[in-house]
């Protein structure tokens, strides 16, 4: 069984290759495949036990490729393979001369294999995989390149509905596996009780119904099926009547033991099935395209099948199986007939057809055979099925209404079948006579064979019942069901009803045109509230909502994005704080010191000034002021190193900022007053949160186990008294190394961005700025100031290990000095002054830092272990590898700062 599936998939993959070289041979090979499968299946008829086969697939998810062939699978797979064979024969002729037929046959074979896999699968996930494969291949078969907008829309719709249903089905299957504890269908079907009592049952049912209804075109999803009629006719015959659309029915039948028997099952299926049955048969009436007629009558048949499964008695299930069998045979045949007519006279419009019987006798013969089954004429399988339906409905408790509805629907179906199988051939053509000739045998043969099969199976109905229908019913109900079927029951009420239906249908048949006009008008009015319209409206509505949302939230304004993030964060943390049982234990109020008040006041005033300033230069300057004030706060709380770095960084940042900002225009007020009010509120809420958090953190008595360690070990282990610096260059030297590397990347990044493909003429020259500040005093002063600053920076670097200072601060001071020089004199002069380009300085700094750490390795010590010379040198003091490391930091910081400066300054230069 598995081998058959694999060879089918393999064949479909290899076929296009083979077809290119040996077209004839490969086509024959293709025909052999469904024959082989049919033979395999025919030999399994009347088997005693189901055949099972299994391969492990995803053991960790308890999913296996398991298959099981029982009565139900057998009847479906027989239909799939036998009709598949006929379709292949038919399509070989029908599509002669079309482009890309190789691909078409390959997809058709893949579809056939997927259908077989679907009905053989004994694992929910395996089933789902094949289920989706049928959807995908069906899309591939529906065709390419539709010039017609309507056809495109319909194809997308069909795809959407089945894909959506597929996803819903997946949910149902996952939930079902969860409820049953296994994905094996045969095991699940033994645990029906468990599943029906599970509280997941309603959800499971809903999801699986969604999957089955979409696939089997049940109301309100039925409209995709007529829409999909743009497909080539062999595809419609195969997919849209005989096989794929029956997959939903198959699923319901397959899971019947696990899911059926509840009121929810019964009423839903009965209701939906009945509506679909009626809607399909009545909607078929106003159609004039042969294929559309057939599509709607297929919808009706599918509705009837769902309804029968909903009723769910032994008789109902038996009826369903017989009807399904009969329908697949005759409806497939009728589609092929419609295709044959289309092929011969290039129209499918009922209004233009007629009088083809003489020219195309063989097609007409096949059409008649199928048609008899379709209208339920004795002796056909369709007749048996219709008798059974009436028998079931008459026995129903409130049968009168149902009977009336069924008669109505069947009458309509009879009439429309007549329009397909009889009208084109035997009605006098009202318009100009059609030029027609008989098709070749591959086109008229398959429908005739299908029609004959319908008659043969009916003639030998007892055998059909016991060897095909019986086992299928048995596996649906999972209890032994002796099935005895007879062709002729005598003059029963069922027979009378059946006869009446045919006569009434014949009446409608003859008064087609006025009838069609009347119903067509009604239909047009109803379609304003039909499901198709609702579907379109829903989709439009969703799209409008999406657009609206984009305009409100995703409008491109950074402001909105920030507000969203801030508010969400405030809400998220605020709720958690409010929820906490203890609440906030904030520190007790202490009267602020004088300096605190002054500094806080300066910061606050500066913030207000920044927000309201309209000049960028002023903003930057005030920001610098804030930075300096914060440095003062550090100083006040006894962190001179931190303060120093902050001072240096602020200076540098202001210089860089000015270089960048110089070319930008003034701030524009683009927000309205209410918007600004909102901004203020959001800012206040964010600020309040952060203030609260800071207060909260500081209120906690905190004992670090790190601080004492560093303080105690700084001098003995690292020979330094400045703990901050020792941490940077010794204890956590590796982190520092990482940080200067990141700095280097940032500098190179800035450089790359600024230098990239710059159309230099677009920007005002940077030189303008530099020229502006050129006065006599500055360059002169700088000439003396710079060396002093540089010496000071080296001084900072060297004393750093023991006193306030260090490579980082030193580097920043040196960089500021050099920048000052660049501004006062010129960037070029600075470059000439430097021994190496900034980028090389970065590299050198990183190398020195890296190498200093490596010294330890030669002594067999870990990387970055500090090594010290035993005696202090005269000027430098104690020298060791951490000092060297600090030198690396020093150089790298200079390199980074200058690299950015040069990039910005040169930007407008050349």
């Amino acid at each position: 069984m598995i081998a058959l599936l694999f060879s089918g998939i393999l064949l479909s993959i290899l076929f296009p290759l083979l077809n290119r070289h040996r077209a004839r041979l490969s086509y024959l090979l293709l025909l052999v495949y469904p024959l082989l499968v049919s033979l395999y299946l025919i030999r399994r008829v009347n088997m005693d036990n189901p055949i099972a086969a299994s391969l492990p697939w995803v053991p960790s998810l308890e999913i296996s490729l398991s298959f099981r062939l029982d009565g139900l699978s057998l009847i479906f797979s027989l239909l799939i393979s036998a009709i598949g064979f006929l379709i292949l024969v038919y399509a070989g002729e029908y599509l002669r001369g079309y482009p890309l037929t190789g691909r078409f046959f390959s997809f058709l074979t893949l579809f056939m294999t997927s259908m077989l896999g679907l009905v053989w699968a004994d694992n929910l996930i395996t089933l789902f995989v094949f289920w989706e494969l049928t959807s995908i291949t069906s899309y591939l078969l529906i065709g390419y390149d539709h010039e017609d907008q309507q056809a495109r829309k319909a194809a997308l719709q069909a795809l959407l509905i089945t894909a959506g249903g597929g996803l819903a089905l997946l949910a149902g299957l996952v939930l079902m596996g969860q409820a049953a504890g296994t994905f094996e269908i045969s095991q699940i079907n033994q645990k029906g009780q468990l599943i029906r009592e599970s509280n997941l049952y309603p959800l499971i049912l809903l999801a699986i119904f969604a999957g089955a209804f979409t696939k089997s075109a049940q109301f309100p999803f039925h409209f995709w099926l007529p829409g999909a009629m743009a497909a080539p006719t062999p595809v419609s015959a195969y997919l849209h009547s005989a096989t794929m659309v029956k997959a939903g029915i198959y699923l319901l039948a397959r899971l019947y033991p696990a899911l059926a028997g509840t009121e929810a099952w019964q009423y839903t299926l009965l209701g939906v099935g009945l509506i679909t049955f009626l809607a399909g048969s009545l909607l078929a009436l106003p159609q004039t395209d042969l294929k559309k007629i057939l599509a709607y009558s297929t919808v009706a048949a599918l509705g009837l099948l769902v309804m029968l499964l909903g009723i769910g008695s032994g008789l109902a299930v038996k009826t369903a199986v017989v009807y399904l069998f009969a329908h697949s045979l005759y409806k497939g045949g009728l589609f092929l007939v419609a295709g044959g007519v289309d092929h011969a006279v290039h129209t499918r419009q009922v209004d233009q057809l007629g009088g083809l019987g003489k020219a195309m006798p063989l097609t007409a013969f096949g059409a008649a055979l199928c048609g008899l089954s379709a209208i339920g004429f004795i002796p056909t399988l369709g007749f048996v099925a219709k008798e059974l339906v009436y028998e079931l409905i008459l026995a129903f408790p409130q049968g009168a209404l149902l009977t009336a509805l069924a008669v109505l629907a069947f009458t309509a179906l009879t009439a429309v079948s007549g329009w397909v199988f009889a009208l084109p051939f035997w009605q006098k053509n009202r318009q100009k006579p059609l030029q027609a000739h008989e098709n070749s045998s591959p086109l008229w043969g398959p429908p005739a064979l299908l029609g004959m099969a319908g008659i043969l199976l009916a003639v030998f109905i007892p055998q059909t019942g016991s060897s095909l229908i019986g086992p299928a019913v048995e596996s649906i109900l999972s209890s032994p069901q002796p099935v005895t079927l007879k062709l002729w029951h005598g003059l029963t009420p069922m027979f009378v009803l059946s006869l009446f239906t045919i006569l009434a249908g014949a009446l409608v048949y003859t008064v087609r045109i006025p009838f069609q006009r009347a119903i067509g008008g009604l239909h047009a009015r109803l379609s304003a509230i039909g499901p198709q319209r609702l579907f379109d409206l829903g989709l439009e509505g969703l799209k409008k909502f999406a657009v609206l949302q984009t305009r409100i939230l995703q409008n491109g304004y950074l402001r909105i994005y920030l507000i969203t993030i801030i508010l969400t964060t405030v809400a998220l943390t605020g709720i958690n704080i409010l929820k906490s049982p203890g609440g906030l234990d904030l520190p007790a109020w202490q009267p602020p010191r004088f300096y605190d008040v002054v500094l806080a006041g300066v910061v606050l005033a500066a913030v207000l000034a920044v927000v309201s300033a309209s000049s960028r230069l002023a903003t930057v300057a005030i920001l610098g002021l804030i930075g300096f004030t914060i440095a003062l706060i550090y100083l006040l709380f006894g962190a001179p190193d931190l303060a120093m770095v902050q001072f240096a960084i602020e200076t540098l940042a202001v210089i860089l900022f000015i270089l960048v900002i110089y070319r930008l225009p003034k701030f524009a007020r683009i927000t309205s007053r209410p918007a600004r009010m909102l901004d203020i509120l959001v800012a206040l809420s964010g600020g309040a949160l952060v203030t609260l958090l800071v207060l909260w953190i500081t209120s906690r008595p905190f004992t670090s186990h790190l601080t004492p360690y560093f303080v105690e070990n700084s001098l003995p282990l690292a020979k330094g008294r400045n703990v901050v610096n020792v941490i940077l260059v010794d204890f956590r030297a590796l982190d520092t190394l990482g940080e200067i590397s990141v700095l280097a990347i940032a500098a190179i990044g800035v450089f790359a961005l600024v230098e990239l493909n710059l159309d230099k003429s677009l920007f005002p020259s940077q030189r303008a700025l530099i020229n502006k500040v050129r006065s006599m005093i500055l360059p002169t002063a700088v000439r003396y100031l710079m060396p002093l600053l540089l010496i000071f920076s080296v001084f900072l670097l060297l004393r750093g290990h023991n006193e306030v200072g260090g490579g980082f601060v030193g580097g920043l001071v040196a960089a500021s000095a050099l920048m000052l020089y660049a501004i006062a004199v010129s960037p070029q002069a600075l470059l000439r002054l430097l021994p190496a380009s900034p980028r090389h300085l970065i590299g050198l700094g990183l190398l020195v830092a890296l190498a200093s750490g490596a010294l330890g390795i030669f002594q067999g010590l870990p990387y970055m272990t500090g090594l010290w010379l035993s005696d202090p040198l005269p000027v430098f003091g104690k020298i060791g590898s951490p000092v060297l490391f600090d030198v690396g930091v020093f150089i790298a910081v200079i390199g980074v700062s200058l690299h950015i400066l040069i990039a910005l300054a040169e930007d407008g230069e050349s």
Partner: protein
Amino acid sequence: MTLTDLMTILPLAVLVAWTTALLLVDLWIPKDRKGITALLAAFGLALTLGLSLARGQQPRQAFGGMVVVDGFAVFLDVIFLASGLASIALAHDYLKRMNIVRGEYYSLLLYAISGMMLMTYAYDLIIVFLALELLSIPLYILSGFVRLNLRSEEAALKYFLLGTFSSGLVLYGIALIFAATARTDLPGILAAVELAPANLTMFLVGGALLLVGFSFKGAIVPFHEWAPDVYQGAPSSVTAFMSVGAKAAGFAALMRVFVVAFPSLSTDLTPVLWGLAAVTMVFGNIVALAQTNLKRLLAYSSIAQSGYLMMAFVPYGQGIVLSDTIAAMLFFLVGYALTTLGAWAVVIAVEKAEGRGLELQDYAGLGRKYPLLGAAMTVFMLSFIGAPPTLGFWGKFYLFRTAVEGGFTSLALLGLVASIFSAYYYLRVVVMMFMRPGEPEARRDPWLVLTAGVSALAVVGFSLVPGSLLNLALQAVLKLL
């Protein structure tokens, strides 16, 4: 730092050293021969990939427990490195066409990957932050790589401003957690919370702030707003990398930090995680319906995919489901990475200079004229929907199953309904390619075709035998715990 430390993080160390060397070497490579830089960068990544794979999955700590290299890290590293290789393949021709050839592109890319790798190793909040910055800064620059293109500049600036803002929140979170537990190493935090000298509210608020920061990187609604703008503005080859790498890194941080250090927060955070997952799935999918620009469409799609990932993460605190949660997310990320990179390869093949060739109409007739590209794109769209036979199906299936197992059936159903909407916009691309007549022009760059082809084959091929990949994900998890 000892030699053992270095050997433990050898792949990362090699990559960083290689990248730095590349940065220097690139100075001497003439502008019209930057293909050499690309090749060297690819070689560096391949070397690192080899070293990572050769390391084995035995977990090892280094640098005093600051980093840990285990199966979890290696699994994700392979994703990062392979995505890096793919995005070099995507960039080579693209940069030339867009006239933005710069050697730094490759160095920055490699630095970003180093940051992502470091993120997977991180076993201490300080390292988490360091990694976050190391991976973010190069990405900020790369998003603005099309200089003088306003969209690109705007993208870079937005990404940078919002990114630093969210990094600030992460830093705040770390500070709060440190204040609450006096620790920054993940096991230490766990121990401190269990031994209960910690301030639990402060701890919770800290955790929430970290969640915000990581959600930003992973583009979780409502911290996603940068994503569509940045995805659209950044050069497509960068976007492709970012939508895989940055997202996976965000989720890597989320998984590592929350699973190791914050299991106790699970109960308090469940409603929050639930809400984030739900909003992300619904929102991402619905808004994507309105998109006609492929880059924006893929941006929203990637937001929606984050939602699915988040959904499986909700039950992370339940001991029984935990290993499934992590395995499902890792496994999904593989499929997501392959699908995303492949889809971007197609987008890049169709894209023209100055942001043309990105509208849905530009794909009309693509399937007819370039059957291979069309078929590959169809595979990717199906994989995004989660339809078999693609890896996306198994990934989504596993995520949903995990959510259901964790008891979040309604969330799973919500996600499913949302993904039904997604079918519309993904299939629209397919319909456009195959059913609308048109005369599209696509590049026949061999590297693009190779990336798209290999991804498509892998997406389909792995879906036929998902078992082995899944086992790898499961093993990666076992080593984490």
